[in-house]
């Protein structure tokens, strides 16, 4: 890599840090408070792009490109699921989840599960499983960061990996970009511009998409097929369904994504944010897969498919632009990694340590627990990434499949099915996670032609329904949960325009006022 690339990479980070510094200094303490605690200064577009920059991880630049390079157009099944995933999540559980979690007073997604399915076992199992799987996901980000850093700087991979891990830890422990929403917004724009620039450069190099498709056809016609290279997945609808599901409905089972639903601002902001996120996804999501496919023609001798996007950028773009693109990739890795580590640390301290080990834990003790876990994940992740790094794609798909399989029915039923009870949810989580892991570890995909995501979600859903119905008498849903769900579902025969203008922040007040007006029992 040239010095110019490194210069622009450093310049990028100086700009990002400068934005963070400016945003935090431009106002007095009152502005800062409003930004950090009020959240009213961030509009729907910034909200959407902030979410997208953290959810689009290093996978998009390494895993997606690598898959396109290895399988051709088959890879776009994953993109198709991903594009619609955000809207699907928002529609199915987003708004109702926000309202219910607020009414139940839950701050984290794991805490919400325990409040909806009252049982310590639910929180313990969900917390431990999430920590384990998010740890996996972090390892994928570390590998992506290490590979990117090694390519950009030319230093050996072990050293580059150590630097990437170190930077991510500093960000997570000390605070990196202080004004996260502003810097994330900037990063999301850079990510989009960067990946579109590579795609356009690749298409220009190959004379357009039609010419590229002809050239691919000459190399191997099956690369143009929806069944993968050498028609390896021909007729395997179970595998195709897994590819579609993993980033669409799979997202609904991610506790760190569900947490975002709970933190949404008012519903009207959420609706417009969903629109912006979809527009951004339409452009961004298919691009890395397509670049990977085009890399088959541009870099026929590429030894590591996951480096396809890096290498295409290096080969086709001017050094300054390459620096910008590399920065965008590193930004994706870091913004996702620190979010995941924060989430993992929070679950460890709040949902496990404070809840089960030390209920009187001080803030200092909980910070120590969070940091210790994050440090342990970083050390173990470094060792795994160094000794025998699995592909970023494999890790991300594994973690997503197990998370989705375990939690999808639990979260969806938590907001839509009044009968869903604790035994049903707990058994569903255990069976879903167990089946998905077993399917993956035992390598049953090849023999059964069914993806772990498919078997996991089907088995956890069936378990949820069967166990819930079988245990209605011995474990009925508490009446107060029914009341909360009824309140979240309907307020009577209210015109849609009226409902659309409703501020769900006021639901608790509305319930109390309603009770007071009816019986006067709440009044003094």
């Amino acid at each position, binding site marked *: 890599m040239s010095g110019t690339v490194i210069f622009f990479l450093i310049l990028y980070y100086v700009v990002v840090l400068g934005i963070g510094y400016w945003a935090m200094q431009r106002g007095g*303490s009152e502005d800062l408070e409003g930004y*950090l605690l009020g959240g009213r200064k961030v509009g729907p577009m910034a909200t959407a792009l902030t979410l997208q920059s953290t959810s689009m991880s290093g996978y998009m630049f390494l895993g997606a490109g690598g898959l396109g390079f290895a399988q051709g157009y088959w890879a776009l099944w994953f993109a198709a699921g991903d594009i619609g995933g955000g809207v699907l999540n928002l529609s199915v559980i987003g708004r109702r989840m926000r309202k219910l979690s607020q009414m139940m007073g839950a701050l984290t997604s794991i805490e919400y599960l325990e409040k909806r399915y009252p049982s310590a076992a639910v929180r313990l199992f969900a917390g431990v499983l999430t920590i384990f799987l998010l740890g996996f996901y972090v390892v994928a980000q570390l590998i992506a960061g290490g590979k990117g850093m090694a390519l950009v700087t030319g230093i050996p991979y072990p050293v580059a990996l150590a630097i990437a891990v170190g930077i991510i830890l500093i960000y997570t422990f*000390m*605070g990196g970009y202080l004004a996260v929403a502003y810097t994330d917004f900037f990063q999301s724009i850079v990510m989009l511009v960067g990946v579109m620039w590579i795609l356009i450069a690749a298409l220009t190099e190959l004379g357009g998409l039609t010419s590229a498709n002809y050239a691919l056809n000459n190399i191997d016609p099956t690369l143009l097929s929806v069944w993968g290279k050498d028609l390896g997945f021909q007729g395997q609808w179970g595998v195709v369904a897994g590819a579609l599901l993993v980033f669409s409905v799979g997202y609904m089972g991610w506790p760190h994504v569900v947490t975002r639903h709970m933190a949404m601002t008012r519903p009207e902001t959420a609706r417009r944010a969903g629109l912006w996120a979809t527009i951004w996804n339409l452009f961004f999501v298919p691009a890395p897969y397509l670049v990977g496919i085009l890399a088959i023609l541009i870099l026929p001798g590429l030894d590591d498919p996951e480096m396809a996007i890096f290498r295409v950028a290096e080969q086709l773009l001017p050094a300054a632009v390459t620096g910008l693109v590399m920065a965008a990739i590193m930004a994706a890795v870091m913004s996702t990694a620190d979010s995941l580590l924060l989430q993992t640390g929070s679950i460890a301290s709040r949902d496990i340590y404070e809840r089960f080990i030390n209920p009187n834990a001080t803030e200092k003790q909980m910070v120590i627990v969070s940091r210790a876990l994050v440090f342990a994940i970083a050390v173990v992740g470094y060792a795994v990434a160094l000794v025998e790094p699995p592909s970023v794609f494999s890790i991300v798909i594994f973690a997503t499949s197990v998370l989705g399989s375990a939690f999808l029915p639990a979260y969806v039923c938590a907001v839509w099915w009044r009968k869903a009870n604790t035994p049903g949810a707990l058994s569903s989580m255990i069976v879903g996670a167990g089946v998905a892991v077993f399917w993956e570890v035992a390598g049953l995909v090849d023999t059964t032609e069914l993806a772990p995501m498919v078997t996991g979600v089907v088995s956890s859903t069936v378990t949820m329904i069967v166990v819930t119905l079988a245990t209605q008498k011995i474990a009925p849903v508490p009446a107060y949960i029914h009341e909360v769900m009824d309140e979240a579902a309907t307020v*009577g025969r209210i015109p849609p325009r009226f409902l659309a203008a409703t501020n769900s922040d006021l639901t608790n007040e509305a319930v109390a006022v309603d009770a007071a007006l009816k019986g006067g029992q709440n009044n003094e």
Partner: protein
Amino acid sequence: MSKLAVIRTAVFETDAIRLVAALSGSSDVYVETTQYFPYFSFAGRCTLPGLFGKRQTDVRCLIDAVNGHGATADRFDVDHEVMVDSSKIAVKLTAAEATAAAQRIVTHSLGRNLRVIARFEPDFDAATLVYKKFWIVGDGQIRALVDSVDGSMHPLRVRAA
């Protein structure tokens, strides 16, 4: 009758009627009554970590004194109003419970928004009990409460015929 601290009204009776009338399309909208909802208000300061050094910021939080749920809040002024007790929702939370909830909510919000694992430990002044006025507006068919501070609205259950 009681004299209580009430968050200053910015949305008045006529505004509330206009808002609900616009949404319902009815011309027979009127304010049925007012209800005063209690909150514990917390204000204090907190130290934020960062690559550019530590920085102090004000922190503010309102805890719903009925359910114990909370939200971070803007600054507000308070007026003292006299009201009949029947329009006042009863407080069900102790100050100690509210303080614990405020600490938790502010710490959680700061950690999430700053995306950093650090000690915040907001230093709150003593909690004060404040009330917010809600206009209960209806047209005989639809009934809603309107926040007298920001004008946001939430429907109430439709009364039985």
